[in-house]
């Protein structure tokens, strides 16, 4: 990595309170040398997309375990497109069935990390795919 540290936003949209995974991912990404911003719980898609734009982040990662990933990703993606952040990396992790991967990819969430994903897989995915 040259130049400025790459910036990653990890966000918890919706009412889901499960934050063990999101916080663990934040720590792993910090250890991997990234600058990480964590939103905390209960964020609206508006707040998340706004933060991503204001902080000009390179990666946006959503963590959703309640099962509401499709509507929440849809809303966030719409706003991120409005803010012209389609050239950034969009990720989503949590309790996500395999059958939803396609729909999420079509929305722009190319990296999907369901329950049981490894930290090392998340870190290497970002390393390999971040321009």
């Amino acid at each position, binding site marked *: 990595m040259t130049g400025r540290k790459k910036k990653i936003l990890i966000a918890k949209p*919706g*009412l*889901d*309170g*499960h*934050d*063990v995974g999101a*916080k*663990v991912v*934040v*720590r*792993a990404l*910090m250890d991997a040398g990234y600058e990480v911003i*964590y*939103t*905390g*719980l*209960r964020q609206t898609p508006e707040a998340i997309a706004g933060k991503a734009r204001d902080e000009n982040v390179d990666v946006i990662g959503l963590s959703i375990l*309640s*099962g*509401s990933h499709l*509507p*929440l990703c849809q809303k966030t993606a719409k706003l991120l497109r409005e803010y012209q952040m389609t050239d950034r990396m969009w990720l989503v992790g949590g*309790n*996500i*069935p*395999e059958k939803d991967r396609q729909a999420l990819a079509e929305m722009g969430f190319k990296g999907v990390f*369901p*329950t*049981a994903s*490894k*930290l*090392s897989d998340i870190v290497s995915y970002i390393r390999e795919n971040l321009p």
Partner: protein
Amino acid sequence: MSKAQSVKPHKDKPVRPVINESGIEIKTLYTAQDVVASGGIDASLPGELPFTRGIHPEMYRRRPWTMRQYTGFANAAETNERFHYLIANGQTGLNVAFDLATQCGYDSDAPEAYGEVGRVGMAVDSLRDFEIAFDGIDLENITVSLTINGTAAILIAMFLAMAEKRGYDVAKLRGTAQNDILKEFIGRGTWIFPVEASVKLVTDTIEYCAHHAPKYSPVSVCGYHIRESGATPAEEIGYAFAIAKAYTDRALSRGLDIDEFAGRLSFNLNIYGNLFEQVAKFRAARRHWAKIIADEYHAKKPDSGWLRMIAGGGGFGLTIEQPENNIMRGAYYALVAALSGAQTMALCCYDEAYTIPTPKAQRISLRTMQLLIEEIGLCDTVDPLGGSYYIETLTNQMEDKIVETMKWVDDQGGVVKAVSEGIIQSKVSAHAYERQKDLESGKIRKVGVNCYVEEEKEDLKVELHPYDQAGAEKQIASLKKLRAERNAAEVERCLKELRADAQANRNVMPALVAAVKAYATVGEMTNVLVDVFGRYKEPIRFSL
């Protein structure tokens, strides 16, 4: 080859060191000397202070543990149906799951509730939903535990109002609310109001119940979720006791006597991990809580110091890989709870790592507990592991570790301050990170995950309970109908009173009970309280 010859070469090689999760080094063998060196055996009998061996003299011989599977989904009517199914299958208590909108204080038609109505639990907007959910349930013989925190004061008011309407004497009504908001800030996350206001509401419920519903347990202090979030077994108890003491101090400051409410405090604790460490944890916890209540709070009634507990779950121990293994894990976890003298048990179902349990999975959990009672002899004698050199030594050592954690919390300025500043959250999540790294490196062994994995890559079976959009719309339609039919002026008056009481820092429970009876909604009451108290702002902290 003789036996002696085959053993000999191994003797030169030291055995692998073992340190349990709480940080205690485990010896290959324990003798009477270890028990003495660690502080000796507590000679008290079960039912005698400090209750190391159990809070009742005859324990399960008199009455097996209550079986209380966590249940609730969609709406009140569907949940009611599942309640009746579980009771018909021998379940002896209810443990109600609420959807996230209810838990976070939103009505089903609020924009924040979109996509969440009835998803992870039952949707509740008003007293009407409680009337439907508990229809036909005998509240004298089936005790109900409400897994609710942020809006607990409202739902307790609702439960008491529902019971009263059905003709039960509230003064004799039993039941439990989780209502442990301090742990929500550490793990689980269904907080609403700032820390101080949240603790005030918990104290309001304790004070109100002590006067009006003295058999009702308004708080179940949860080490459980803190453990799930990354704490060790000893820390789980240490944090839970620090939290329980905080509520106790607040209740005392309202002028209550310790003996008026301490006996109704209960605990919700976790059962996954090393069997012996867990059993020792529960024995040590029981003893230490009794000491705290007797020595620090000078309770006169012995049952004020009872550590009454639901021991259950173990969700973190379950895996999405080879999910059938979770059935075995559940059985061992149930064994832990039974060997530990828990009053109530609830098991995570084998499919719970990835979905809301099916009726079949719930029946397997129920049968697991029934097997222990009927076939395996777990209810025959009290504290069957008592007297084991290993268990007695470990009990003493675990108590020392619990004290260590409580001291650490005190050094941070107490649990309310440590939670407000995000200190405990950071410590717990740092540990979760270490735990995850150890799982990925194989330092912590996990069957089906980092050892004995399937040769062929498994298709991980994440299945979501399908979201019932039509059901959500039905819930919203009933809510709108309710709003149109109820006495609007009465609701208005009750909400005004609630606001006045909150502003004047009076106990809000009487106003909540009145508002609930007028069919004010969860969202309306929460909004009034948010207006007065504000909303919690989460401290983001990744260092100590």
